[in-house]
């Protein structure tokens, strides 16, 4: 069968003021009818530009400089706009990353979907609306007829993405391009959406191009994968082969950088050194060579072509890694200057309790009208207690809106608790005031998620790092500057970075800078709020390694907040799982991960995609169904009961207390846990008759 889509040597260039970016540089790929092709790569690898080239939706200055794109035998690359318009939406549908900005907020969703139908089909308004209701039903929207008349803001994030998919499918395209369709969504919703796309692909017999940075998403959903790096395809083959036997060093390095696999051994992650090349003047040699641990002189002089042992497995490398080579020369070829995965592990002996939260409550008032009348409260944190021991990492994990960030902000003092106590090193933080409070601040520092937003754009890095010392009146000017230089060494930034402004650093470097600022006051506890979620896998590994290395060196304690269970598990000694303002499970990381007692924890673990195709395919229909209820009127009793497969009547009436599940402080709050609790007396009341 001829491929549905065939791209030959596609070159897409973007003209900018300072030169031409070779965003896509000679990409060839094909998509068979009915299959899912995954395009995976880090930001700037050209994966989105490839997708936009197919759609003819390149940004200003972007143009196809060479190559062909054939859809069903018809050349569509660089067609005039009015011809492309007929193909777009009709034969190729596209789903974008952010469902909030992709929908028009002033139009009802019904009209928006009908618009897509009416543009391509000769139908009446009523027929178009009927079709809209039909596709909404198809994408699993409850009560589709009634919801046609609603506006995008009345839908949740997951539902909006369903609307986007419905719109893309309204004209039954042969090819669906999904560009990071779930990146903005929570894992439980991500799983639902990915399952939907997969299901629709089978039912409608269409092909899907799934563009993503997440190897886990690719593992479970794609039939074949193309790994892109710096505008070129590094390796392409079917999913099983790629994950079992990657041949390109970049692919291999990506796998090694994932925290999933290192979580059990707690080895340091392999981090790809450096940053991707500048695509304005791409190197004439192998583009990965400067970051490759196997690179030889040959790699830095000549560009490898996309070849392989068979047409089904292509890779662009002179010295491929993987099974065929293993045991022969690989070890000998490892460049001595660039150490491979270090065998060093990190196991810690936790000390005394350094931070204790007791019954933390935070309500945000909901006000209305001119006089700011209080009409309700968002219950962001509802009675959370936990202990963090000196020298350990306590991971707080949960979906967005579960209150994990609020807890972090309460601890660093950016918010005031409605009720409850936070004691730090024996003293109560809330009762300290004025000078004493500011002194206490030194011991607890905060690492922001968005390092770009948290660094003053008008300050040089040196001034930013010096500011904490200036505020706390520590040392003379020379001492402060010396300490800034020391700190830059610590976090792996060059000393001349002090003269630079935040925008002159890359994402990973900025996160190092944010980390350095948090370390300036020699804190004992660092609250890190999603410090790596905005970073690419290879850069994420660099930052995670840095964090764990400095934890050992400086005896730091971390409160690590993240939505990413794999990252939390890798770094944490203890994990707390939050759901809608409640701590539902807490305990040692391995125990919580391997023997979760709470159904929500189980669901989270099942929802999170892992880079293992076999495991991904095996866990069909697991995960958490439904969506997060409103925190303004949370469900009675157990807050998780509305989405829980085990919920019974008692769950709506009695709020389950945290009960111990092992001697190692493993606790969970559930009436019908997945594991057997320790003491039977405490549970007898909740046991079903």
């Amino acid at each position, binding site marked *: 069968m001829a491929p549905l889509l065939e791209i030959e040597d596609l070159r897409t260039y973007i003209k900018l003021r300072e030169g031409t970016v070779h965003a896509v540089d000679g990409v060839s790929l094909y998509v068979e009818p009915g299959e899912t092709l995954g395009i995976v790569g880090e930001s700037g690898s050209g994966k989105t530009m490839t997708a936009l080239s197919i759609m003819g939706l390149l940004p200003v200055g972007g143009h196809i400089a060479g190559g062909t794109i054939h859809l069903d035998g018809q050349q569509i690359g660089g067609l005039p706009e009015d011809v492309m318009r007929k193909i777009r939406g009709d034969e190729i549908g596209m789903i974008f990353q952010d469902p909030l900005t992709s929908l028009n907020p002033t139009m009802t969703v019904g009209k928006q979907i009908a618009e897509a139908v009416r543009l391509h089909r000769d139908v009446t308004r009523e027929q178009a609306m009927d079709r809209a209701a039909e596709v909404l039903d198809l994408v699993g929207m409850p009560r589709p007829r009634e919801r046609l008349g609603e506006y995008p803001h009345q839908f949740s994030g997951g539902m909006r993405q369903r609307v986007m998919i419905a719109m893309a499918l309204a004209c039954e395209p042969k090819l669906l391009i999904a560009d990071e369709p779930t990146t903005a969504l929570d894992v439980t919703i991500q799983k639902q959406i990915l399952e939907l796309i997969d299901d629709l692909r089978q039912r409608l017999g269409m092909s899907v191009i799934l563009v993503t940075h997440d190897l886990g998403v690719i593992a479970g959903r794609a039939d074949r994968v193309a790994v892109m790096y710096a505008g070129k395809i590094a390796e392409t083959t079917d999913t099983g082969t790629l994950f079992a036997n990657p041949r390109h060093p970049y692919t291999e390095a990506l796998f090694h950088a994932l925290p999933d696999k290192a979580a059990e051994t707690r080895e340091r992650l392999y981090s790809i050194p450096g940053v991707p090349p500048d695509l304005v003047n791409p190197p004439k040699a192998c583009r990965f060579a400067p970051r490759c641990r196997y690179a030889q002189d040959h790699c830095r002089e000549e560009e490898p072509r996309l070849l392989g042992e068979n047409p089904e497995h292509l890779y662009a490398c002179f010295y491929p890694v993987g099974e065929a080579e293993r045991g022969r020369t690989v070890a000998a070829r490892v460049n001595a200057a660039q150490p491979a995965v270090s065998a060093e592990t990190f196991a810690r002996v936790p000390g005394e309790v350094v931070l204790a939260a007791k019954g933390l409550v935070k309500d945000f008032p909901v006000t209305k009208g001119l006089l700011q009348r209080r009409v309700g409260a968002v219950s962001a944190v509802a009675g959370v207690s936990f202990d963090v021991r000196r020298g350990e990492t306590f991971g707080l994990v949960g979906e967005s809106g579960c209150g994990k960030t609020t807890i972090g902000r309460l601890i660093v003092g950016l918010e005031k608790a409605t009720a409850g106590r936070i004691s730090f090193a024996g003293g109560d933080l809330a009762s300290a005031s004025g000078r004493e*409070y500011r002194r206490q601040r030194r011991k607890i520092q905060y690492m922001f998620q968005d390092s770009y937003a948290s660094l003053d754009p008008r300050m040089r890095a040196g001034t930013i790092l010096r500011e904490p010392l200036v505020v706390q009146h520590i040392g003379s000017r020379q001492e402060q500057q010396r300490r800034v230089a020391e700190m830059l060494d610590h976090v792996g930034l060059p000393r001349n970075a002090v003269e630079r402004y935040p925008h002159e650093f890359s994402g990973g470097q900025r996160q190092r800078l944010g980390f350095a600022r948090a370390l300036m006051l020699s804190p004992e506890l660092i609250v890190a709020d999603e410090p790596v979620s905005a970073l690419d896998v290879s850069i994420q590994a660099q930052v995670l390694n840095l964090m764990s290395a400095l934890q050992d060196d400086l005896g730091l304690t971390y409160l690590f907040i993240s939505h990413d269970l794999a990252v939390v598990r890798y770094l944490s000694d203890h994990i707390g799982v939050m759901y809608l303002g409640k701590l539902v499970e807490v305990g040692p990381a391995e125990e919580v991960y391997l023997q979760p007692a709470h159904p929500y924890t189980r669901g989270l673990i099942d929802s999170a995609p892992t880079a293992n195709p076999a495991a991904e395919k095996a866990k069909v229909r697991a995960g958490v169904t439904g969506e997060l209820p409103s925190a303004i009127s949370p469900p009675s009793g157990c807050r998780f009961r509305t989405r829980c497969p085990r919920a019974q009547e008692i769950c709506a009436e009695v709020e389950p207390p945290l009960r111990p599940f092992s001697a190692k402080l493993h606790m969970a709050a559930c009436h019908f846990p997945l594991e057997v609790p320790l003491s039977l007396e405490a549970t007898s009341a909740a046991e079903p008759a």
Partner: protein
Amino acid sequence: MSMITPPPEGPSAGAVLDAPPNGAGTLTAVEAAELGLEPTAKPRSLLRRGWEVFAENKLALASLGGVVFMVGFCFIGPLIYSTDQVHVSLAQSLCPPGSGHPLGCDQLGYDLLGRLMTGGQTSLEVGFAAAVVSVLFGTLYGAFAGFVGGPIDAFLMRVVDAGLSIPYIMVLIILSVIFRPSTTIMIFIIAVFYWLGVARLIRGETLTLRTREYVQAVKVIGGRRSRAIIRHIVPNSIGTIIVQGTFAVADSILILAGLGFLGLGVSPPATDWGTMLSNGTNYLQSQQNYWWLIYPAGIAIIVTCISFNFIGDALRDAFETRLQRR
């Protein structure tokens, strides 16, 4: 601080590294080499880099030239080309441009080139002074309202809303009838209305800056509120303030011209460009073509206002740190 161990050996010039002393060393050494930002030249000052962005904009450079010329023309011009701008000389009434009077004379026999300079002095003085007064007051008012928030903010901003809802032309007319219009009075009449818009703009700016993470970061490191305001919020809104100031100059000159055109400008023998324009229109309908009464003043107003607007646009770019090259 004693917790910090001495930094590991920095990478030598070559790619080969010494055995790293510890885990952190592994990372820092490898990556300092790999990430190594190329050594930069001696850093230039913020103003210097701002100027480079500004100078890239040719239109802005030309506009800056235009403003400098206008200021020189009005304030230095009379020293070179001195004319009697006090005594009426009816013999010269409405004489056309020619020898002795390059731009001719108006109906009272004042030399128009000299009058353009005198009028320009008033216009530019009022323009600059009104801009400074209104931007200064508006910034303080708006920033204060934005910081304190809550009911005080609500009250202060309702005052601004009330002020903006009054038709200003009417009040300007009443005020300039009550007071005998002098340069000082005109400055305050214009500033009384102009600061309202500035206050509203700066308050909005402050509201967004207040929630920025780098302002919150000050709280985390134990800094006071005043530090957040002085070191972070003000420097980050200075661009808006200065750009607003530039536009305020142009707007004030226009308002003054408008008042002068309505016959409410400064009283004779002093004059401004608007008043000159107003005079000229009285003779527009006659058989004679007294073009020299209209065009010079009109062109002066347009050139000055357009120049200030272009300069304002270019300043906005110049103050954007991200656009500055190193």
